[in-house]
């Protein structure tokens, strides 16, 4: 039996991302979101499971598909939505948008538009935690596609030789844009690649927040004990296409049907209900509360102003004290 409060927590985190992303999709449909978008819909269990295993002071490094990571880590939904709408009240004052959505004061060290460029930064953050003896852990999210970039090898290697408190979280959603993983990776799993760096690794069901959480707890404990990095490959699937106008036609119907039936929100809700951590009524109440929060955040974001044109000059350099 799993601790009941954890199941409620996992359900809440998973659902919160889902409702946030559905709202983003809705706002996008109303043409309120400039630029492009990489939705996290479908992959919610990964961010929920990993962040639930972290404490508040722990750190995460995110990707171009970062909405779910930052929301799960506790980012302010109003500031996050305002950022996606390019408003000055956004967490990055309208300078970052979807691909750079970040809130430092809840432990998000950045989302990046350059695939795989977050891994070296996670190495440095984990090194800093180790050198400053803060007992913090850094979780670094990246995709299956990112694991083909050179920084993957460089960063795993450095994290292993220095036994850094970092958790490498691969979100294997089977595609990098339209390229299927099996054409780009000779091994059956991404996790196997970590063997070459002597990094303990595991493959988990990335549609099941509890499974992700349990793997992450092991990894976090190992990191905090000073035993170094772990790689967790979460096998998951995106509900939508890669980005703004991608209908994901390249995905075979049987494959999509199979994965989309493994709904992340329904999966964790079912487990929580079965283990008597949650009643249908309580689940419904949580949903209503979260929906209200999301609606209020959207209202705030829509009402906010765009930055003044001359704010283009702000924040290039920090003042020398």
């Amino acid at each position: 039996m799993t601790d009941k409060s954890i199941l409620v927590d996992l359900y809440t985190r998973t659902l919160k991302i889902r409702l946030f992303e559905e709202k983003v999709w809705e706002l996008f449909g109303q043409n309120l979101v400039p630029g492009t978008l990489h939705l996290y819909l479908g992959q919610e269990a990964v961010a929920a499971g990993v962040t639930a295993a972290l404490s508040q002071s722990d750190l995460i490094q995110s990707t171009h598909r970062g909405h779910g990571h930052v929301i799960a880590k506790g980012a302010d939904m109003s500031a996050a939505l305002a950022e996606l709408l390019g408003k000055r009240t956004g967490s990055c004052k309208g300078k970052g948008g979807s691909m750079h959505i970040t809130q430092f004061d809840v432990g998000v060290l950045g989302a990046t538009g350059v695939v795989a460029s977050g891994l070296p930064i996670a190495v440095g953050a984990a090194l800093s935690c180790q050198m400053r003896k803060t007992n913090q852990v850094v979780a670094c999210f990246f995709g299956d596609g990112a694991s083909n970039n050179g920084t993957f090898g460089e960063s795993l290697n450095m994290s292993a030789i220095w036994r850094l408190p970092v958790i490498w979280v691969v979100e294997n959603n089977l595609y990098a844009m339209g390229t299927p993983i099996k054409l780009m990776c000779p091994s059956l799993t991404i996790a196997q690649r970590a063997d070459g760096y002597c990094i303990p690794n595991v493959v988990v069901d990335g549609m099941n927040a509890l499974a992700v959480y349990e793997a992450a707890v092991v990894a976090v404990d190992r990191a905090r004990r000073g035993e170094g990095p772990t790689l967790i490959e979460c096998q998951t699937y995106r509900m939508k296409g890669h980005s703004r106008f991608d209908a994901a036609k390249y995905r075979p119907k049987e494959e999509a049907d199979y994965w989309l039936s493994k709904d992340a929100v329904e999966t964790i809700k079912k487990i929580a209900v079965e283990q008597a951590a949650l009643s249908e009524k309580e689940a419904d109440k949580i949903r209503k509360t979260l929906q209200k929060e999301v609606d209020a955040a959207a209202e705030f974001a829509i009402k906010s102003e765009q930055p003044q044109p001359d704010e283009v000059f702000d924040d290039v350099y920090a003042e020398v004290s």
Partner: protein
Amino acid sequence: MTEMTYRDALRAGLREEMLRDNRVFLLGEDIGRNWGGAFSVTKGLAEEFGDDRVRDTPISENTIVGAAVGAAITGLLPVAEIMFGDLIALAMDQVCNQAAKMRYMFGGQTSVPLVVRTVFGGGKNIASHHSQSLEAWFMHTPGLKVAVPAFASDVKGLIKAAIRDPNPVMFFEHKLVYDKKEEVPDGDYVIPLGEAKVRREGTDVTVWGTFMMVHKALAVAQELAKEGISVEVIDPRTLVPLDKKTLIDSVKKTGRLVLVTEETKTGATTAEVAAVVQEEAFDWLDAPIKRVNAPDTPVPFAPSLENRFIPDEKRITEAIREVLK
């Protein structure tokens, strides 16, 4: 004041900052106790501060700089070393996409107080992969500061300023200046980034240049003085921020300008500086601005070729005579 080499002054600056603030640490390839850096800049520091704070890394340039970024945004003051400047091409993502943009892209939520040290320049017959001068790449990237100290008397104060600066600072050295000796002020002092130095005063023509070219320009100025030609030599010391005022004031005084760096000519920092002077001091110019640079070729190997590649005293002298015509 103590006479010492550029290398020793630089090491003294690094050492003093490591003593002053235990958040400062060094990372790079072969910088630790077995070697002390390819140019011996960090020799002895690992013995004094330990292998954690003078940290040997694998040969992973992009991740060396990225790790410095991650450490910088979480409370440390990293100084990353890239063994040869040409190899910074491998770290361009972390330098130009991450370090330079993070503060801006995240709306001022963080700053990135890191220093990337590397060495540029030819003169050692080691050809195209170990000899370039790439300052302009970084001058063209908003969010970075760029230091180009050419003298022992400057390098210590500038490395201290770079380490204390809350922004990413690209700190460029030159292979041939490491052994140059000068009187260096003792004790703790900082030379602010963005202040040029008039290395020699003159009234007939201004020569602005970097690294070895300042040394060569000074030698030329001394020769030409015998003919009664008075050359003012300006060493910018940093390219970002660029001290426009010292340069413009000098041009207003002399009315003539020669720009000289070891970079290949097209798109070099000299092109930017010429444009600045054209915008801000055109009316004071008595002759067209003259640029002296390397030709637009990769750096060659053979001594005869490399000597033709790197601007020499003769070319600088010719340029000066031309603008004085």
